[in-house]
């Protein structure tokens, strides 16, 4: 079966989870502090995570095509389907970027009024120095402009690929044209994605910077995308589709999961190592706050995303069996979602608490507002050195999980809907035969 049929039951399950996600977001808004920090961090967190998955799907698709790879041709429609989700990310990032102009949120310290104005009492010398990049115009341009360019490429590549299916010729003219498009996309994507990550995520800890951060976040996206790909492939195979995808292809997808997990660990460690080794004391603040105030997530991150995949996926057989692959994919998808949680939440909370103090909003009031959400979110009531960490920041609470499931459902709904629009196995791809006979 090459034509995917999106059944009513699948649709209603996914829609149900989307409603759950919306409910959780609404509930988060209701129990939130005056700045709705928890709501906005959750929105940013999931938007960045799933937009990133869509982006990296297109990126590896392009990279593999440029590298003359053929093994993945039987699963390439999955990457195409994923990549189009960027259009949803575009809308959501538009809201977040708009929020910096209209003061919907206080996610970014650098977005405060008068941050670069020496006469203002918001003046911050370091952020003034960075203000030629960290400002609202660049943020908006970066979020909306870059994403629009990526989305354009995603739709262009997708339509070319479908055109190849319908009107592919023996001289592979469509493929030649596709190769040119992806070759143009790659360098653009490489530079813009780094800048986008700096703006979306790294600039939350506005005083801090790391030259490895873009790689680090991209590797995280990559593993999450591979996990989701494996889960989707196994789901589709379970429904009787993708008969051409064999253990050999799953083995290769599993290898990517393993390899990029190691790569992610290298970056996770080296990011700290360089700062530590060079005695750049002021840059250790990023790690200190996470190690001291979020120890469970900080070390748990390393165990889930390095130790377990390293030991479990090392064996040949675990990369070929559905059971271990599904287990590791679910674990790593969640693990890298938590990784992004840890990148975003501590810095955003710090900024919000500072802003509240600055604006004279008693922190006590905010804390009282949090009490509503206390039981709901299952907070562990940890007390850092400076202040109590409100629910939804210390640990992903039930509302965060619900929001995540809502976003995941929307991502899958969108992707499955794309799968109905073309054959699941591309027909006239020159590498199809290679992929069908793939053997590791």
């Amino acid at each position, binding site marked *: 079966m090459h034509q995917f049929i999106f059944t009513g039951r699948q649709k209603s399950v996914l829609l149900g989870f989307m409603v759950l996600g919306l409910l959780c977001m609404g509930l988060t808004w209701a129990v939130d502090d005056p700045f709705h920090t928890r709501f906005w961090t959750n929105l940013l967190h999931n938007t960045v995570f799933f937009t990133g998955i869509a982006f990296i799907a297109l990126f590896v698709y392009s990279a593999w095509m440029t590298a003359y790879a053929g093994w993945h041709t039987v699963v390439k429609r999955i990457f195409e389907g994923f990549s189009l989700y960027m259009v949803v990310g575009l809308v959501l990032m538009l809201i977040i970027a708009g929020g910096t102009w209209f003061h919907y949120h206080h996610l970014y310290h650098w977005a405060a009024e008068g941050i670069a104005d020496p006469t203002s009492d918001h003046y911050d010398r370091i952020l003034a120095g960075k203000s030629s990049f960290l400002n609202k115009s660049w943020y908006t341009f970066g979020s909306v402009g870059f994403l629009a360019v990526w989305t354009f490429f995603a739709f262009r590549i997708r339509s070319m690929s479908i055109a190849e299916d319908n009107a592919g010729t023996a001289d592979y003219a469509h493929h030649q044209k596709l190769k040119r498009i992806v070759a143009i996309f790659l360098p653009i994507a490489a530079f813009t994605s780094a800048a986008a990550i700096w703006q979306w995520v790294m600039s939350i800890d506005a005083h801090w910077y790391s030259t490895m951060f873009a790689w680090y976040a991209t590797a995280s996206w990559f593993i999450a995308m591979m996990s989701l790909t494996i889960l989707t492939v196994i789901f589709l195979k379970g429904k009787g589709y993708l008969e051409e995808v064999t253990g050999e292809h799953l083995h290769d997808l599993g290898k990517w999961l393993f390899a990029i997990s190691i790569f992610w660990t290298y970056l996770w*460690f080296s990011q*700290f*190592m360089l700062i530590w*080794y060079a005695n750049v004391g002021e840059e250790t603040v990023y790690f200190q706050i996470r190690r001291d105030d979020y120890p469970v997530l900080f070390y748990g991150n390393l165990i889930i995303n390095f130790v377990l995949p390293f030991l479990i996926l*090392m064996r040949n057989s675990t990369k070929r069996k559905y059971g271990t692959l599904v287990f590791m994919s679910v674990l790593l998808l969640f693990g890298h979602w938590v990784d992004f949680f840890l990148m975003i939440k501590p810095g955003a909370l710090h900024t919000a608490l500072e802003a509240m103090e600055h604006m004279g909003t008693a922190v006590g009031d905010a804390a009282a507002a949090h009490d509503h959400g206390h039981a709901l979110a299952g907070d562990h009531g940890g007390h850092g050195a400076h202040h109590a960490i409100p629910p939804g920041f210390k640990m992903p609470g039930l509302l965060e999980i619900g929001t995540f499931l809502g976003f995941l459902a929307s991502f899958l709904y969108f992707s499955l809907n794309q799968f109905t629009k073309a054959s699941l196995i591309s027909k006239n791809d020159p590498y199809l035969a290679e992929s069908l006979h793939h*053997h590791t």
Partner: protein
Amino acid sequence: MADKHSEVLFGLYDDEVDLLDAVKQANADHLEIMDVLTPFPVHGLDPLLGLEESRLHIAGFIYGALGTMTAFGFMTWVFTRDWPIIFGGKPYWSVPAFIPITFELTVLFCAIGITVTFYTICGLAPGKTPDILDDRITDDKFCLAFKTNGQSSEQISKLKNFFSRTGASEVHNKVI
């Protein structure tokens, strides 16, 4: 690895597809294959020959773990017991600084250990001349070999007949 003085009858094929077909035919005829030698790994050959997955990687893991422990343990001993030195105001037991060396020694132990183990299994060592059936099996020939110690001329002619049926380009006898 083979016994001293094995009498070997082997056929050389020009293509791996012919070789795979020949192995299938040999299995169907219940002929006992001594070995198959190819210039490169041929996909699908292992299951046809009924070979189990190699256990070399388990040895590799053990060597690697040994390297990890050696590096980490040695540095810990040196920097906390034997010769503690303060570098840049950092503690004696500076774990992040140990990680790169631990990684390197893990890889080194694993690589050397696995190489030595593999050579030992294959009976290779510096200065040892291996018993090669034909030099061209490292180039462009695919070899299928039968052991013919103590076999009757009738059985041997049956094997020769098998080679001619399955399209071997050459058939040779050799004592190794």
